[in-house]
């Protein structure tokens, strides 16, 4: 009796599945008809008013003559040549490539379509996700120059470095100040998981104007809880100054940081030193958005001997 009941349940289930499949296909058909309807008139409307039928031949005014145009600074340079005229693309070298008939512009010149061999879009894999709290937006252009006294140099070059992880997983601690800033394997040191720090002994007091740090830039990573401190003693007891801190939950224990997370790039992160006097530089981090490990490619400290 029970088996019969179950068999009927199974049979009913199969009927329901087939019915659902038919209903979903039917609903799809309906929704598509609804969805595609508005696009039809849009296609018809793509024919512009009279102005579009012939290319404008008149001299284009420079940007300065055009009020209320949202011209960005970077594009302003384009306006420098005076009396810029509309481009008439040159005749194609290979006439077989011309895909459209030549359209007259009611004048002497001919307006021809650009001889384009249309490249198909290049397929790419899933892009990287950058889901990180308190992340600063990208600069979108090269970092502007950082001004400092003329006699400063990288005073950390080949200076001794120590680390909380004395036996790195990859590389040697000394690589942090060896001058190699490449992203490739063999250029970075990989420290263990959780909270780690490296300390550079500059071997003398310096006025520090900038610290540039490269954690890892083979991919766009964000390192967590980055704290940069300088001090006059190796135990960081006297004359300690925190130059950067994005430890928003104070998990490093040096106070809540107000700086933002940032995405690693080949430019490295430039941290202003404001001329602070110190001999030791310490950098903390606590994993990154790809894994729990900590990496350093290079740390540069720009300064001059403390007068």
């Amino acid at each position, binding site marked *: 009796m029970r088996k019969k009941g179950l068999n009927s349940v199974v049979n009913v289930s199969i009927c329901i599945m087939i019915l659902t499949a038919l209903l979903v296909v039917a609903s799809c058909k309906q929704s598509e008809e609804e969805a*595609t309807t508005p696009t039809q008139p849009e296609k018809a409307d793509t024919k512009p008013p009279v102005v579009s039928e012939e290319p404008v031949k008149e001299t284009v005014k420079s940007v300065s003559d055009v009020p209320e145009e949202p011209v960005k600074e970077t594009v302003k340079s384009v306006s420098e040549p005076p009396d810029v005229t509309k481009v008439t693309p040159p005749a194609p070298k290979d006439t077989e490539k011309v895909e459209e008939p030549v359209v007259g512009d009611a004048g002497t010149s001919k307006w021809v379509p650009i001889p*384009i061999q249309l490249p198909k879009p290049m397929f790419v894999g899933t892009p990287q996700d950058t889901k990180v709290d308190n992340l600063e937006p990208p600069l979108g252009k090269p970092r502007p120059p950082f001004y400092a006294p003329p006699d400063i140099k990288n005073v950390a070059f080949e200076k001794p470095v120590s680390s909380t992880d004395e036996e790195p997983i990859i590389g040697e601690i000394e690589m942090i100040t060896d001058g190699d800033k490449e992203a490739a394997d063999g250029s970075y040191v990989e420290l263990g998981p959780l909270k780690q720090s490296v300390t550079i002994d500059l071997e003398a007091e310096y006025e520090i104007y900038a610290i540039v740090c490269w954690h890892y830039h083979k991919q766009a990573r964000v390192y967590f809880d980055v704290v940069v401190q300088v001090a006059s003693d190796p135990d960081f007891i006297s004359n300690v100054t925190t130059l950067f801190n994005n430890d928003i939950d104070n998990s490093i224990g040096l106070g809540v940081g107000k700086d933002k997370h940032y995405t690693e790039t080949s430019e490295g992160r430039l941290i202003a030193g404001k001329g602070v006097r110190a001999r030791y530089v310490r950098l903390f981090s606590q994993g990154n958005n790809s894994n729990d490990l900590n990496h350093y490619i290079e740390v540069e400290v720009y300064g001059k001997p403390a007068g």
Partner: protein
Amino acid sequence: MKWSIICVVLILVATIVGVALRLPQLKQRPMHGDEAVHAFKFGELLEDGFYDYDPYEYHGPTLNYLTLIPAWAARAQKYADLSESTLRIVPVFFGVLLILLLLPMVDGLGRAGSVFAAVLTAISPAMVYYSRYYIQEMLLVCFTFGVIASGYRYTRSKSIKWAILAGIFLGLMNATKETCIIAYGSILLALVLTLLMSGRQSGSVLNTLKAIKPCHLIAALVAAAVVSVLFFSSFLSNPTGILDSVRTYTTYFDRAGQNQLHNHPWYYYLKMLLYSKYGSGPIWSEALIVLLAVVGFIVAIRKRPMKGVNFHLLRVIAFYTLAMTVVYSVIPYKTPWCLLGFLHGMILLAGVGAVALINLTQNIRAKVFIGILLIAGGAHLTWQAYLGNYKYYADSRNPYVYAHPTTDVFTITERVEELAKVHPDGHAMPIQVICPGGDYWPLPWYFRRFEKVLWWSEIDTNVMPAPVILASASMEPKLMEYFFLPPPGQVNLYIPLFDTYLELRPQIELRGYVTKDLSDSYHQYQSDKESPQSKGEK
């Protein structure tokens, strides 16, 4: 009999809830880059009638071939005719089918357990979100469950039709995504572990396996092979696809170990399911499912059977889920949709776990209290499913939103469409899109109606600048030189196309440039269009 009907009705109600959460506003969320790539590949199949399996990317062909059904239903003949709804209806269908597939499992998971599992499948935020995502994952999960369900039915009836159906689902899994081997391995491991636990007791897995007729097994394997071969060979028109379907595994093994772009810690998925909070966004959690699954797992491995539940089936599901969870957590390459496979296993266990929790006590008040907690938890999941799909659908504060384009793509598309209205060539207006590394997806989807789009990773100085250029912010210095490429007297003046900062994806800025005369034509067109209105207002 009466309870069986109630159970079927409740599963159907859960299915309706599942449809209601999955079907509306399929166009609302911007197409993800992966969705757009699959859409483009499907466009080739639709227009050329041919599919060529690529062992390096894009996974198996089932998604493409199955999309032909809604495309034909929508009378789409070209790539440009497609809409988001036409594509996304496919995963929606399989997301709904996943709920209905619980019907043949009622006597295995128990009536109440099946109903709970159906409800949790219907309302799980991750299940709902990725049921509206034009990728292979939901199909793979559905086909995997199809293997389990038809395999289970075969053990009950010994009918060859279930064996063949299980074989078809096995073949469909293979033709869907290469990660099916993780599911194959997990099912096999689960069978072995269940076998070891059950020993030689009556009705054990060993006895069940012994009862399988060799000819039925052969029929199932033949069915799997036929389905797989048909799909990979593009229905016998591309025999190399069959070999490629094997060769592909070297690619995917390499990727799992080398591609660091999607490397995440081992706890990435579990953390995502248990607790996620980004910025000012809400707290996301499917902890109810995970906790109930743990209870279900305990029920599965303890010695005392539970009434109405097939313990061998439950153990297979428990070990399968555990194996899937461990393997996916251990593999460094992680994308959030990959969690669906073991999340579904967790949901099945959670269904049984919920019943076990209610049966934990004989006290009616305690039962009511547990029931209220479960209802509240279910309501919270439903609320999250709603938020995730209709409010935070493209917001990176939603944990399931991964490297997703921002809604700025709509602004970009709208602006370019407007320019096409005033350009003499309309949708044949030349456009150049220049983004290093081909990082311009999903724009190829949104520009599908444009006939002359040049997709570049670098500037090609052999081609004169087009009237509309879209480019990554990093390209701007090179573009400044490129604008002056035409000879003197023919250099055009470019101005920014967008008034505001626009992102293709979070942190990925896209800038636009338009020739000044085209921009002037557009503004003239706009003022002509608006002037009759303003006159009317006056």
